[in-house]
């Protein structure tokens, strides 16, 4: 394996978000549940790995009402997203045909932080959480890094894009039912894989990321997590995306994340029931 770059990689410049109507260029399906939607954006999306867009069908009318926060799977003039069908909005996206118009508000949020010089990036993804990691993996490879990756799902059907990831990184796969890769979860493998010179980037279900964050913390390894929460606006106004922090306050995933230092997050279920007296901590938004 080649050595990681030792020179610092400057954090890329963040572009201002724009609210645009874009035609769907294509939809690629990975089974019934997972679909990649690619849009045509000639002026360029300006998206960086880890950033997200608020996405809504131009013809949705009054229901579903809200746009969906979606991590970019790619940027440039062909921005794409990976969706998993969970509700009405994603079900409509899964049926979308080329030419259909979508509103995209983006790029939004903080992208992944570039690795520290001399460190090896290890990407740990679960299911649909692969989107911002695959985008980041491409970005890293272009800059001379040789990322390792660990990708898990319930079954082999929950590993869309694992082939793409395997082409550009040293990939290990896990499935809970053993239908692909090692039987078990990514967190079963992570502990054995971790080396002191690594930095971890993770995106997936909350429980998975909580375990990844804990393992990294115990090994004193820097871990960045891409947070997923319900969001109505995506730009710091609705205050719906509050995530409890270890400092006893909330961070807002849309503007302070989605990519954050995992040590800032209070991962415990039900966290955030702070003292609601008026003299409690102040939100930053």
């Amino acid at each position, binding site marked *: 394996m080649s050595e990681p770059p030792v020179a610092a990689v400057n954090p890329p410049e963040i572009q*201002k*978000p*724009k*609210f645009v109507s874009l035609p769907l260029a294509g939809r690629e399906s990975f089974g019934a549940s997972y679909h990649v939607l690619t849009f045509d954006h000639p002026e360029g999306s300006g998206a960086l790995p880890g950033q997200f867009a*608020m996405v*809504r069908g131009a013809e949705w009318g*009054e*229901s*579903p*009402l*809200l*746009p969906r926060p979606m991590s970019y799977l790619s940027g440039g003039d062909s921005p794409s997203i990976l969706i998993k069908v969970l509700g009405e909005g994603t079900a409509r996206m899964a049926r979308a045909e080329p030419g259909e118009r979508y*509103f995209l*508000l983006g790029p939004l949020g903080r992208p992944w932080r570039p690795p520290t010089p001399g460190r090896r990036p290890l990407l740990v993804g679960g299911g649909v959480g692969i989107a911002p990691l695959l985008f980041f993996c491409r970005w890293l490879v272009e800059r001379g890094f040789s990322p390792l990756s660990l990708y898990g799902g319930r079954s082999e059907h929950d590993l869309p894009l694992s082939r793409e990831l395997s082409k550009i990184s040293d990939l290990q796969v896990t499935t809970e039912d053993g239908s692909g890769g090692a039987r078990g979860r990514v967190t079963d493998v992570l502990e054995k894989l971790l080396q002191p010179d690594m930095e971890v980037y993770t995106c997936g279900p909350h429980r998975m990321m909580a375990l990844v964050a804990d393992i990294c913390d115990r090994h004193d390894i820097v871990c960045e997590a891409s947070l997923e*929460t*319900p*969001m*109505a*606006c995506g*730009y*710091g*106004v*609705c*205050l*719906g*995306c*509050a*995530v*409890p922090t270890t400092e006893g*306050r*909330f961070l807002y995933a849309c503007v302070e994340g989605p990519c954050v230092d995992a040590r800032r997050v209070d991962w415990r279920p*039900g*966290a*955030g*029931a*702070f003292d*609601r007296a*008026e*003299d*409690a*901590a*102040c*939100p930053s*938004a």
Partner: protein
Amino acid sequence: MSQRVKIGALELKNPVLTASGCFGYGLEYDDFFDVAELGAICTKGLSLLPRPGSPPERICETAAGMLNAIGLANVGVEAFCREKLPTLRRRGIGVVANIFASNVEDFVAIACRLEQESGISAVELNVSCPNVKAGGIEFGRDPELCARVTSAVRGATSLPLWVKMSPEAGDLVQVARACQDAGADAITAINTIRGMAIDPQSRKLRLANSTGGLSGPALKPIALRMVWELASSIDIPVIGIGGIATAGDAIEFLLAGATAVQVGTANFSDPCAALKVARGIRAYCEARGLSASALVGQAK
């Protein structure tokens, strides 16, 4: 055709405002449009001291609407005056300070703090938040309590004073009249209606606060009816709010008797929604040779 409207002594450049809690402090829109083009903004509800807000989950989408239980997370009136207001003032943005407290004394203290500042167009009393234990809707349901808060704040500020109504006030007209008699300059109607949602798979309530305020298009017919009833029953202006997403929606509220309107949840799906509403009303007026104020109460 003139888009200017008068709400008591206060004149706005057009009848479109943004609703409290749906537009932050107005400074979050720099990337999208010049907010000074709007009639005014209503700030996120300001309390005497900063508030962290409720634990997640705080929001949940419903049919043609959404529930929220943010818990009035805000920076507090002092930080607002020091960190947000100077920029708003410099940019010529009309600012309505929405304020919230759990007792009359704190309402007065917030109003007194705002009184020291220039660049505030009006104070809007939030006596109708459905998501806090003390104050909020407790005040808004009771004409006497509402009048007491209104009267106390009236005595503390020379700024135009608006009271934001809860749709859950038993007799909305009675509560509005009590506020009018206590010195309110306008009534904002309506705040959200309490609702809830449950995940049938996990059987869990969707919101950590159990219930939340319903907003969005689902609310519009109810809000429109309430504005229409209020406008024909009280002497002070009514500011219409509830599910307004388009110029057509806003014009309905003006025709029902609202002097101005507030755009709320629509800002979430399109940050330029309020601007589009303002421009749409102007186009409607120009096509008919009417001023915006000539539409008020003209429903047949």
